[in-house]
């Protein structure tokens, strides 16, 4: 029998004639006879796994109509009572494991399984539920995964492999442990998934759903227009992005037109979008004064008095600031300290960190000429970041425009020649990491050097008793040099804290650089030595005998505590008044906090060994000196994120009246209040902090907690002030 020959059969009493090779399901469909199904889709190869489409062909058992070819003389019954009973039992079994209502049913009311259950009048399954035991996977910015809602229909697997040729999704496990998996069972956000959205479109339940970004009105503000999907797909960097996905996320990307001089975003503001410049030029700058808060004695000696002022580097050169600094911002360029202004052109993307990790805007961007930009939400940016065309364009732009300044922003690389950087251009690789993803692991062979382009990296070391945080690194900081310098294994594990992008320089290029530039090697060795010293100091801390309260209150993490001896303190608040007097009325100390022994650990900067305040600073202006003292750099934009991040509420925002350029009317200046983050500076102008000096009852002490409480931690050794 040839494939083109017709086969006659009977379906529900109707004689039909279809081409040989046609499935029973399709034959019935051609006759207008609906057969319910979950796993079968017309554009995918039938697999017959859900068994919902079973029909009675007169055989010993029912058959799945989607995979059973027609046979001559076959008598098919699609809706007999027995078939209906079998189908109902299947629905009950599936519903028993299905969290009802699932995400899809809740959001759009179109879960196919639950719709089928309603038709079959299955309200309360007779069977005991069984959870997959797998947590939900929210790692992808655009697609939510709920493994409990998965009915193993494989539609997503076929959509990913057959339709899109990505082959990221597959089935894993056996029996009740069976489920879908991304790559080798990685989190979706960390897998090679390109977020094309095909799996989500294919899924009949709430197992794979679109993450809807609500409460963000992209359709507001300056002139905007929603871009039709087909028009988006014609843009070079949207080529290859799933039209279905774009259509589902309609409104998550808009085209905006900005007139020359118009503000696109302001430093310090919170946002959730990134901008891609289609046409025109924009100017990116920092308007907050380039200065740090200096608490200065206005009268010397015994009549000493303090006043807080904004001090520029020329007036107050601090230690370790002898080199020219570049300010890292959330754009493809860094800003020069002396002139924090740069130009952005067509093809540049800015606001990635704000969009992906919801950090405050790091700089103010103003349209230099009339501009057209695409403003997009995180799910769209994530798709673009995974799009090969867009990535290629972005990397090319980075190599051409930003690699130079980015490398030179790192003091140890300041002396690299243009020729060498040119030779690096084609060899470096931009690599992205999702939050929590390990970039390199302690003990692994050192094969690369990393320079952070976007995001924050946590450096940890594994020691007896647990993992210890050694540092937090942000844009323009680097890691991986120790293993390469020693030609040994990695000495620490580096993990992405948020959406991180690093410039990876291979071991060979790194060695070439050391050979060509011995001065770079020398500087790197000095830095490595300093880091090792810091690590040793931290390790010594761990060897103290811990007390529960000491640990739970985070006192072990503190390098300097303001303690109030509660047996002497009369609660007169002289310390608070002194602090306020020393800092223009803005106290950096609050006489409240947790108690340890008979001491009150006052709310004042602890100079933490694990300074969480540094994580997220959009311009990397809060840092730790080699002495481990936390300082705030001149380019702080006063966004307040460090104050929010400090777990002890020890960072304050200090307002200053300054004259700044009026962005609304170029060429003019206006008086405005600008803010700078401040923390306890220990009144370094004087020998003793003002709070301690002003305490009339000898109750206030600034101490190193491990030394001060040594007697409590190691009974018998006695306590002493630092």
């Amino acid at each position, binding site marked *: 029998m040839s494939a083109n020959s017709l086969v006659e059969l009977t379906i529900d009493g109707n004689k039909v004639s279809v081409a040989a090779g046609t499935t029973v399901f399709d034959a019935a469909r051609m006759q207008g006879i609906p057969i319910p199904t979950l796993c079968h889709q017309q554009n995918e190869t039938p697999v017959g796994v859900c068994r919902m489409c079973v029909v009675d062909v007169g055989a010993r058992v029912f058959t799945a109509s989607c995979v059973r070819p027609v046979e001559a003389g076959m008598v098919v019954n699609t809706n007999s009572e027995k078939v209906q009973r079998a189908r109902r039992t299947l629905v009950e079994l599936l519903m028993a494991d299905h969290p009802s209502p699932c995400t899809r049913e809740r959001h759009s009311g179109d879960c196919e399984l639950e719709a089928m259950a309603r038709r079959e009048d299955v309200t309360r399954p007779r069977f005991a539920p069984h959870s997959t035991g797998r947590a939900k996977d929210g790692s992808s910015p655009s697609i939510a995964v709920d493994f409990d809602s998965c009915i193993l229909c494989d539609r997503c697997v076929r959509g990913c492999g057959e339709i899109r040729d990505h082959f990221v999704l597959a089935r894993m496990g056996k029996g009740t442990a069976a489920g879908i998996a991304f790559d080798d069972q990685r989190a979706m956000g960390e897998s090679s998934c390109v977020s094309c959205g095909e799996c989500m479109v294919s899924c009949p339940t709430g197992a794979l759903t679109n993450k809807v970004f609500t409460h963000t009105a992209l359709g507001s503000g300056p002139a905007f227009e929603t871009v039709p999907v087909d028009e988006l797909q014609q843009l070079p960097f949207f080529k290859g992005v799933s039209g279905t996905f774009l259509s589902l996320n309609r409104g998550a990307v808009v085209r905006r037109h900005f007139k020359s001089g118009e503000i696109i975003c302001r430093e310090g503001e919170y946002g959730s979008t990134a901008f891609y410049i289609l046409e025109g030029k924009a100017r990116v700058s920092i308007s907050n004064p380039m200065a740090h808060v200096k608490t200065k004695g206005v009268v010397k000696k015994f009549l000493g*008095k303090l006043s807080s002022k904004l001090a520029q580097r020329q007036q107050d050169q601090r230690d370790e600031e002898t080199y020219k600094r570049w300010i890292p911002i959330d754009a493809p360029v860094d800003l020069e300290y002396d002139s924090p202004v740069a130009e952005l052109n067509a093809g540049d993307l800015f606001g990635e960190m704000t969009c992906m990790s919801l950090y405050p805007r790091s700089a103010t961007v103003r349209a230099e000429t009339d501009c057209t930009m695409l403003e997009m939400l995180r799910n769209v940016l994530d798709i673009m970041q995974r799009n090969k065309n867009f990535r290629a364009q972005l990397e090319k732009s980075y190599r051409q425009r930003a690699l130079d300044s980015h490398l030179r922003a790192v003091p140890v690389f300041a002396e690299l020649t243009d020729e060498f950087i040119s030779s690096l251009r084609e060899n470096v690789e931009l690599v992205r990491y999702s939050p929590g993803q390990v970039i390199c692991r302690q003990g692994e062979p050192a094969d690369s050097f990393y320079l952070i382009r976007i995001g924050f990296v946590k450096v940890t070391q594994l020691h007896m008793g647990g993992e210890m945080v050694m540092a937090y690194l942000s844009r323009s900081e680097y890691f991986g040099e120790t293993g390469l310098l020693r030609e040994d294994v990695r000495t620490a594990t580096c993990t992405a804290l948020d959406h991180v992008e690093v410039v990876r320089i291979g071991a060979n290029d790194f060695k070439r650089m050391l050979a060509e530039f011995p001065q770079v090697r020398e500087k790197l060795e000095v830095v490595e030595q300093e880091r090792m010293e810091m690590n040793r100091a931290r390790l010594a801390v761990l060897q103290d005998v811990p007390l529960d309260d000491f640990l739970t209150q985070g006192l072990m993490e503190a390098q300097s505590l303001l303690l109030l001896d509660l047996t*002497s303190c009369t609660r007169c608040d002289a310390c608070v008044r002194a602090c306020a007097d020393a800092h223009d009325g803005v106290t950096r100390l609050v006489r409240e906090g947790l108690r340890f022994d008979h001491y009150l650990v006052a709310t004042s900067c602890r100079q933490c060994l694990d300074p969480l305040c540094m994580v997220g600073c959009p311009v990397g202006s809060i840092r730790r000196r080699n002495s481990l003292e936390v300082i705030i750099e001149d380019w702080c934009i006063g966004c307040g994120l460090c104050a929010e991040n400090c777990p002890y509420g020890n960072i304050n925002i200090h307002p200053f009246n300054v004259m700044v350029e009026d962005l609304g009317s170029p060429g003019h200046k206006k008086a405005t209040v600008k803010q700078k983050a401040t923390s306890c500076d220990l009144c370094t102008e004087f020998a003793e902090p003002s709070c301690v000096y002003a305490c009339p009852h000898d109750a206030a002490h600034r101490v190193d907690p491990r030394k001060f409480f040594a007697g409590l931690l190691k009974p018998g050794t006695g306590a002493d002030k630092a």
Partner: protein
Amino acid sequence: MRIDRTHQKWLAASLIILGVASAVYVFYAAQSPSGPSGGSPIGLTFGIVGSAFMVFAGLLAARKKLPVWRLGRAQSWMRGHLWLGLLSLPMILFHGGFRFGGPLTSVLMILLIIVVASGVFGAALQHYMPNVMTAEVQKETIFEQIDHVRAGMIANADALVAATTGSGDTAGMKGAARSAIAVQTVALTQEATAALSNFYVREMRPFLRNDGGERHPLADTSTARAIFVELRTVLPAETHDAVKNLEDICEEERQLRRQTRLHHWLHGWLMLHIPLSFALLLLGCVHAFMALRY
């Protein structure tokens, strides 16, 4: 300020000054046929030294107004205030020959005795009370914030009771209370609802609003404990977490009251000490002027 071993040097110095002054006074009193006099050179010297001590003690207030000025550590000023202020009394007694003299000097002597006595009383309080406060008020807050904290507690308690009795929402609640409500899912009987509502409206809320003062039954720890034990017996087990939260709120209120009381003890004596000190210094100036002029 605690009077501890760190005061040894000041104590020794004060005893030496007192010993020398006493010896001089005894010798001078024995040598004076008409008895010691404030107008004599030695009497005048005692007066000047005593006045200087008083002035130095009084300058502590000025020092506190300039906390950042590097005029010496505040605790050194406080030690000087304590010991020199104390020494001023014998110096002035030596100056007056242990006689009160005329009306002005009598007033001055009385003022000085009260000021020194109140100072000693205050020093004793500052020595002991911080310990008591630390031990008895575990949930201590900043004194000026007590009313604010109390308002928050009342809001929490209102919301907790409303949610437990099903008569309101939990929107205004804070962490601990809200989590307590999360486990409270069983509908209460009318009797249970009435019992909880009555207790809250008639007993607890007035207590939190400070109606009834210290005589309120919930102001006493053991009475309060008994009241809450009784309340638990009439309420279903599902509400006991909420009742525990209410009991904790009452305990916090008791601690705030204790803190207020102790704070008043710690600082209340200054209401007498400071004005009288200023009066003493002022009248002392008048006395010096009049004595030198006439």
